[in-house]
């Protein structure tokens, strides 16, 4: 196994060629460039289309993945994982539509309540992982399956009630020609990057993910940090679910299922290691954009679903191959 850095940002790396630049920025930039290339390719493939609307479409539809991937990225940073994300997204979407029931006034208490519930599921995961010592893979898989059953019990999976029009408008309106979701997206990316790669809490997470033993010696609050990360992951899935409910204005309990595996793929394509301690949020963001752009180009291709799947699978493997070469060089 490759030697792990104790802190990626706290001390610039000695072996890096450009000591003041985070070495993880390069893979993030490469993936981001690939995403832009995909959008350009999609523009060229479709006569009559132009770059900006394509970019808009990719950005707006990527927001759910971008937000949910932040939480996934944090858990993976600690060497864990969150498999309950798809379920939490669905539950949040159902909850926000059922409780607002078409009323804008209700948003004021429903959105905090929904986020609270989503964070609560994350908290349960965090407690299970940090205090009961259940492996994250199992804890989050089990809580996802169980909470799905709870959701089914309360709704029969049905959103008979409409999402508040305010949320729908939020996801569909523009300011100064820019779709509001894109503004939200950029704001989220900035906040998330600052948290993960600019605060002392973020640095502690890297230290903990790189070496739990060293973190213990340093006296870091391991349990508290772990609980924080899983709670944040639940919270992000909740935000993603609320945005998704607003975007599609019709929520179903399985609406988040297609997001789970892409959150993992986005984090890893962005340069993180599943064993923890590596990866920056900009990389995850680039990975999510890349997957969204890939989805776009595949959607627009006039092919049978079988061929689309094969191309999509191959490109995901290819994107990971690009990352692997980098490590071989770094290691050698």
């Amino acid at each position, binding site marked *: *196994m490759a030697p792990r850095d104790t802190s990626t940002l706290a001390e610039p790396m000695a072996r890096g060629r450009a000591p003041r630049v985070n070495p993880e920025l390069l893979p993030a930039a490469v993936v981001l460039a690939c995403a832009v290339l995909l959008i350009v390719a999609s523009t060229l493939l479709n006569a009559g289309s132009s770059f900006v609307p394509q970019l808009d479409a990719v950005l707006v539809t990527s927001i759910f993945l971008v937000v949910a991937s932040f939480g996934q990225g944090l858990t993976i940073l600690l060497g864990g*994982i969150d498999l309950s994300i798809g379920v939490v997204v669905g539950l949040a979407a159902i909850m926000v539509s059922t409780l607002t029931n078409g009323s804008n006034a209700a948003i004021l208490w429903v959105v905090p309540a929904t986020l609270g519930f989503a964070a609560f599921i994350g908290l349960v995961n965090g407690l*299970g992982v940090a205090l*009961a*010592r*259940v*492996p994250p*893979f*199992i*804890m989050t*898989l*089990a*809580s*996802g*399956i*169980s*909470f*799905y*059953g*709870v959701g*089914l*019990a309360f709704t029969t999976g049905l959103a008979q009630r409409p999402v508040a029009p305010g949320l729908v408008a939020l996801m569909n309106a523009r300011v100064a020609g820019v779709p509001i979701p894109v503004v939200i997206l950029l704001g989220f990316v900035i906040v998330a990057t600052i948290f993960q790669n600019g605060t002392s809490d973020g640095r502690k997470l890297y230290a903990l993910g790189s070496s739990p033993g060293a973190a213990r010696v340093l006296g870091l609050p391991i349990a508290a940090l772990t609980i924080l990360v899983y709670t944040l992951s639940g919270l992000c899935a909740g935000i993603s679910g609320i945005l998704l409910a607003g975007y599609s204005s019709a929520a179903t309990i399985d609406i988040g*299922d297609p997001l789970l*595996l892409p959150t*993992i*793929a986005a984090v*890893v*394509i962005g340069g993180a*290691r*599943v064993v923890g301690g590596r990866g920056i949020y900009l990389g995850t963001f680039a990975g999510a954009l890349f997957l969204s752009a890939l989805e776009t180009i595949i959607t627009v291709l006039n092919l*049978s*679903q*079988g*061929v*689309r*799947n*094969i*191309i*999509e*699978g*191959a*490109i*995901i*493997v290819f994107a*990971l*191959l690009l*990352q*692997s070469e980098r*490590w*071989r060089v770094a290691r050698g």
Partner: protein
Amino acid sequence: MSAALRRLGRLRPTGGAVVAVVIFLALYAIYAASEASAASVFGLTNLFNNTVVLAIASAGLTLVVLAGEFDLSPIGVIAIANVVMATTSVGTLGWFGALILVLLIGAAVGLLNGWLVASLRLQSLAVTIGTMIACEGVALLLLPAPGGAVNQAIVDALTGDVLEVVPVALAVIALVLLVWLVLARTRFGIAIYAVGTDAMAARLSGLSAERTKLLAFVLAGVAYAFAGFMLSCQTGSGDPRASDTLLLYMYASVAIGGTSLMGGRGGVFGTLFGAGILSVMQKMLFALGAASFYTSIFSGLIMLVAIFIGNASELLARVRRQRVA
């Protein structure tokens, strides 16, 4: 302690596996108490038919997990195996030819996964998402809609019972266990635990992590394909769609069976009972008249209970060992 004895020691089921056996028997007892046909050959045959696909696929997954990796591609391999059986087992190849073909396909996908993970050092959790999606695509190309037919001879033979006593599916599961017991005594069987526990130490003691992981993926691929073969016998036809639920339940089987998802600890024995627990639980909850959402809630809780008890019993064992020493 001699090497042979140590090897035998390794085969002893872990605490987690014992817990799985106990939970399985308890759930089965409740099921049998509330459903008269549970203990009949008809009921047992149904139960094991429902279990066998999950059990075999999870057994394969266990190998990869023991070696410290993940695999999300099994549902893709199962889908391909199913459509290949449905399109070739009648006529062209016959059931045996078709079986060999699907096992080879499974091995090939496993080889691809193994090469990407073990040789190119890609992260298995992500790269097998790619191969899963691609495999689903291949299945859709081979059979665009449900249909085809599976050779009637194996459909009847492999879903029935032997002399109206033993369900064939149970015999197949026993066969898988036997293969595992043999495999676990080989050099590969030892290496897989060593690599999963500490790849560096394994390398130092002369075991090739790369070759071990590669072989684990290949054998797992063969197991998934065999699971797809058994699924084809159950359904008698082909369906190109893969079930995400099955993938989740495979990991649940492995975890409930006491195998550590970090690698290096556990075994196929527990996994088989893990799969049995999930199947018998569905039957038990139905027999008790519980609403279907309880199945989900219980699946999750039972996973946690199994892990808790497994952890606790291992802790106890460690304390006892220390006291003895």
